[in-house]
């Protein structure tokens, strides 16, 4: 049944892939923002960032539908071109090795039955989400705001798994690898590492379910690492290898890539050089208006502004709303609290005068006191500027 569904999805896809000139398209609001839309296997129509390695962006309208991002609408970001496409769950094995007393080899049913199952609602956001809005522009994947999503993840705690391997006292970091592979033997494998203090956080899980279902293959089936509050680069997909290290990891993806300036707000001026960098870690606080579009028009009268907010793991304290381009602010009403790592919905209303023009903006503050700021860094990471949504009112 499941397989049949996949085959149907694949078959449907062939038409789209064979005639790209006829494919539906969308134009993201920045230069070189033209994109095709395509339905990849197990996915609805998403914005194609790149086809190899496959990277797909979630259209903005999805975020207005609810706190949780449907699995078939969830963004996709692989780093290496050889993405796993054929998976036999019965043959799947997760290894735990390195500086441990008892190396482990775990099957999928081991993960499901030998460890307590826990759930966490958490936002997965790419470090480069919104890079296309960087000013001045920077090279890299030119995402709009759709390299993020929120899901209910279910799995086994990483620390429970590691405990059974009895890590040695000199363990410093834990390194993770999934099933993706480079095209050339000269390209570095994709490896990510976390400090021991992070892997011992009970919220960090090896997830085998996403929103109550199997993970889509393109989101890391059968299991992926879930690191609530941390950027997606650490959420290794199709996870199959865990190595306990006794020294900080020196591999390319830790030592060179995914680093931000060690400056306030990880921000520098475009002309700055020679600054120190650190590995990127926590999400920055953000909010988005989801029910109104920049440049759109609305009817006169009482108007609802609706959106989402999230941060790197303290939860949302308040969301300010402005209808005059940031001159005055008032608090939105916060929706249900689904946990400190989750999207939080909010709503506000204003009276739209016939023929008027309103510059709307939302500005979230986290429970940790963090606010949205304008920042710039050469990789376009961790963007969380307050964004304006200008609407005109029909007369």
């Amino acid at each position, binding site marked *: 049944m499941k397989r049949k569904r996949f085959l149907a999805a694949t078959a449907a896809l062939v038409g789209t892939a064979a005639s790209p000139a006829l494919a539906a398209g969308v134009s993201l609001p*920045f230069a070189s923002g033209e994109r095709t839309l395509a339905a990849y296997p*197990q996915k609805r129509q998403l914005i194609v960032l790149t086809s190899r390695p496959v990277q797909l962006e979630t259209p903005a309208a999805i975020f207005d539908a609810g706190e949780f991002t449907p699995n078939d609408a969830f963004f996709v970001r692989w780093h290496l071109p050889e993405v796993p496409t054929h998976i036999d*769950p019965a043959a799947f094995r997760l290894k735990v090795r390195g500086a441990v007393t008892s190396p482990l080899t775990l099957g999928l049913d081991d993960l499901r039955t030998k460890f307590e199952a826990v759930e966490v609602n958490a936002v997965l956001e790419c470090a480069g989400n919104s890079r296309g809005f960087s000013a001045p522009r920077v090279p890299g994947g030119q995402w709009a705001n759709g390299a993020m999503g929120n899901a209910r993840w279910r799995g086994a705690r990483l620390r429970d798994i590691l405990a059974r391997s009895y890590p040695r006292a000199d363990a410093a970091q834990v390194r993770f690898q999934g099933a993706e592979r480079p095209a*050339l033997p000269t*390209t570095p494998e994709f490896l990510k590492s976390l400090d021991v203090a992070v892997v011992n956080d009970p919220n960090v899980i090896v997830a085998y379910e996403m929103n109550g279902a199997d993970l889509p293959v393109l989101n890391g089936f059968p299991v992926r690492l879930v690191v609530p509050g941390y950027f997606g680069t650490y959420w290794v997909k199709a996870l199959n290898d865990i190595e306990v290290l006794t020294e900080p990891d020196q591999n390319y993806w830790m030592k060179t890539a995914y680093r931000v300036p060690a400056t306030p707000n990880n921000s520098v001026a475009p002309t700055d050089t020679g600054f120190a960098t650190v590995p990127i870690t926590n999400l920055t606080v953000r909010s988005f208006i989801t029910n109104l579009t920049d440049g759109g028009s609305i009817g006169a009268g009482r108007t609802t502004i609706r959106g989402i907010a999230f941060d790197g793991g303290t939860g949302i304290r308040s969301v300010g709303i402005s209808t005059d381009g940031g001159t005055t602010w008032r608090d939105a009403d916060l929706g249900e609290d689904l946990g400190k790592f989750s999207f939080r919905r909010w709503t506000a209303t204003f009276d739209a005068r016939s023929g008027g023009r309103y510059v709307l903006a939302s500005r979230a503050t986290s429970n940790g006191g963090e606010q949205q700021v304008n920042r710039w860094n050469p990789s376009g990471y961790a963007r969380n500027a307050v964004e304006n949504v200008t609407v005109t009112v029909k007369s």
Partner: protein
Amino acid sequence: MNARRIAATVLAATAGAVMVIWTADRPVPAAQAPVAITLPAQNTAFREAPGVEVARKDCLACHSAEYVTQQPTLSKTAWTNEIVKMRTAYGAPIPDADTDALVAYLVAQNPVPK
């Protein structure tokens, strides 16, 4: 044993793996059947311009054309840095002799926005 349980056992047996027989006190894993997806071919549609054949030869082994076509207008220095990164960080076998032609193609292919 309900239908789902039986199905899971049969699929596991078919796969030839060493499997546990599910019992009433042990939940059946939701996913046991092999899954396969087919991804569309990569987009190779570089813009036609002098040097496009060098771009095809040196770039498409590792990534699709959107990695280039979606970039904003970037300076000669920025594009040169990208080529150096592909060569040194990602181990791409881009000959030194190709660098000038490649940079010229890349700089020209995204016009300055109006």
